[in-house]
């Protein structure tokens, strides 16, 4: 049998007494650091959940649209964790956290007003009105940031033709879903809810105006306006209403939420326009998420094909 003598501890490895006595201080310090790290970690997870809490359903995309940009698509995580959706909180990180349990099924959209065939569509009916296309659009927020998103949907004019607008119809009014039970933070948003938006009928008829059901190959995440929203790439983002429940064709220009909240800052048209500043900041440039330097903002966000809609209009007056 082999026995081994315990190795002798070299004196260099013996903890000096002063250090030994300091261990309490060290432990206290270590505790402080770990509590701090833990708090930081919790804050971090609140700010940026590490997992995708929401899983979308794949959508059948029939075609890639020629209206798509070839610019680099913004990462999914940015598009889903940097949202303005005040019904779920006013911080950009709020909607991803608070919209997780938002019920988007069953869902229906009521189309009424000056149309020959008013009708309430179920989501399925609405989604099958036309083949779904993927459209990669630039999306420019009024706050001077922008993203590029592969949306999925079809031109909104398909729906309009389905309900046959009457000749007296001049505008389209949109309304978002609002329910204080599911959206308790809505009361603190500082804007009147339900969210309402509007377009002139000819704007709504433009092929670029998209009725949108999904993005990145899947159904819309709740925080991005599930289950159905508008996407109007030549206008500031707030015009593209989310979680749409009502569409009404009307004769007079309908009220719109941000315009009611502050009419000097947010007009009815709100076309992207680098020459008309927001009273509090310049609109000449924008920060594309993921880029360091600001890039110049383009007239109509680069969608010049809509220019004829506004021929002869003073866009400084009709901002």
């Amino acid at each position, binding site marked *: 049998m082999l026995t081994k003598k315990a190795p002798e501890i070299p004196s260099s490895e013996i903890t000096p007494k002063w250090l030994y006595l300091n261990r309490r201080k060290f432990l206290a310090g270590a505790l402080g650091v770990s509590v*701090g790290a833990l708090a*930081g970690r919790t*804050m*971090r997870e609140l*700010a*940026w959940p590490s997992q995708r809490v929401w899983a979308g359903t794949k959508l059948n995309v029939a075609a890639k649209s020629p209206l798509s940009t070839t610019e680099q698509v913004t*990462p999914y*995580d*940015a598009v889903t*964790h*940097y949202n303005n959706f*005040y019904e779920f909180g*006013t911080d*950009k*990180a709020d909607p991803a956290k608070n919209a997780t349990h938002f019920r988007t099924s069953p869902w229906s959209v009521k189309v009424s007003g000056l149309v020959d065939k008013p009708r309430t569509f179920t989501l399925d009916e609405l989604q099958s009105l036309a083949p779904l296309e993927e459209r990669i659009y630039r999306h420019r927020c009024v*706050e001077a*940031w922008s993203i590029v998103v592969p949306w999925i949907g079809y031109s909104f004019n398909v729906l309009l033709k389905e309900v046959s607008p009457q000749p007296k119809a001049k505008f389209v009014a949109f309304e978002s879903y609002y329910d204080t039970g599911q959206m308790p933070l809505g009361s*603190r*948003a*500082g*804007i009147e809810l339900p969210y309402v938006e509007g377009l002139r009928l000819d704007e709504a008829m433009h092929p670029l105006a998209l009725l949108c059901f999904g993005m990145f190959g899947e159904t819309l995440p709740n925080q991005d306006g599930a289950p159905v929203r508008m996407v109007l790439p030549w206008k500031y983002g707030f015009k593209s209403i989310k979680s749409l429940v009502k569409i009404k064709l009307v004769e007079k220009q309908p009220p719109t939420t941000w315009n009611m*909240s*502050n009419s000097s800052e947010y007009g009815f048209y709100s076309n992207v326009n680098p020459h008309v500043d927001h009273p*509090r*900041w*310049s609109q000449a440039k924008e*920060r594309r*998420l*993921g880029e*360091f*330097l*600001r890039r110049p903002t383009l007239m109509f966000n680069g969608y010049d094909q809509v220019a004829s809609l506004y021929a002869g209009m003073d866009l400084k007056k009709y901002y």
Partner: protein
Amino acid sequence: MFALCLVPLGRLTWQALHHDLTPNPIEYITHQTGDWTLIFIVTTLAVTPARKILRLPELIRFRRMVGLFAFFYGLLHFSTWIGLDKFFDWSEMLADVRKRPFITAGFTGFVLMIPLALTSTAGWIRRLGGKRWLALHRLIYATAIAGVVHYYWLVKSDVRKPLFYGTLVALLFALRVGIWLVARRSKQSGSALESNLTTAETA
């Protein structure tokens, strides 16, 4: 205490190293440093009332440090705007300071902190003399107001946070007025001791 004041910066650095600064890092850094500037301004304003109400005169030794940290985070906030947000586009920044009231307010608040930071040393207190030094350092009141206004004018619709800071600042101002009124009354009633204490410590 010094280390505690560095936690917000440490957190930002940590998040930066872990690519965790939200999808819009420049905006996030700007908002974080702005928030902490206001928090430190409010804290530095709270030192004097806290000393008197809690009868803890020794708290005075933290005031300079907290005040300097307010300046430090203000400087970070301002540099973020210059270096990251505007990327040294001086003409654009000048235009912003002139044209955008919220930037004018923020800029004013920051500029007013510069002389306070510069004269924060014991040497400067001596050179200026206590009374003049105190008078100069009352500029922090203007900075606090400018900071709150800067924030209030910036937000789009949800004004809860700027109003929260505004309420704190208003409360701290009210406390000062209250303390001053109490001191004046006791002075009139001839309490020499109390009055000595207050003249030496107002601000």
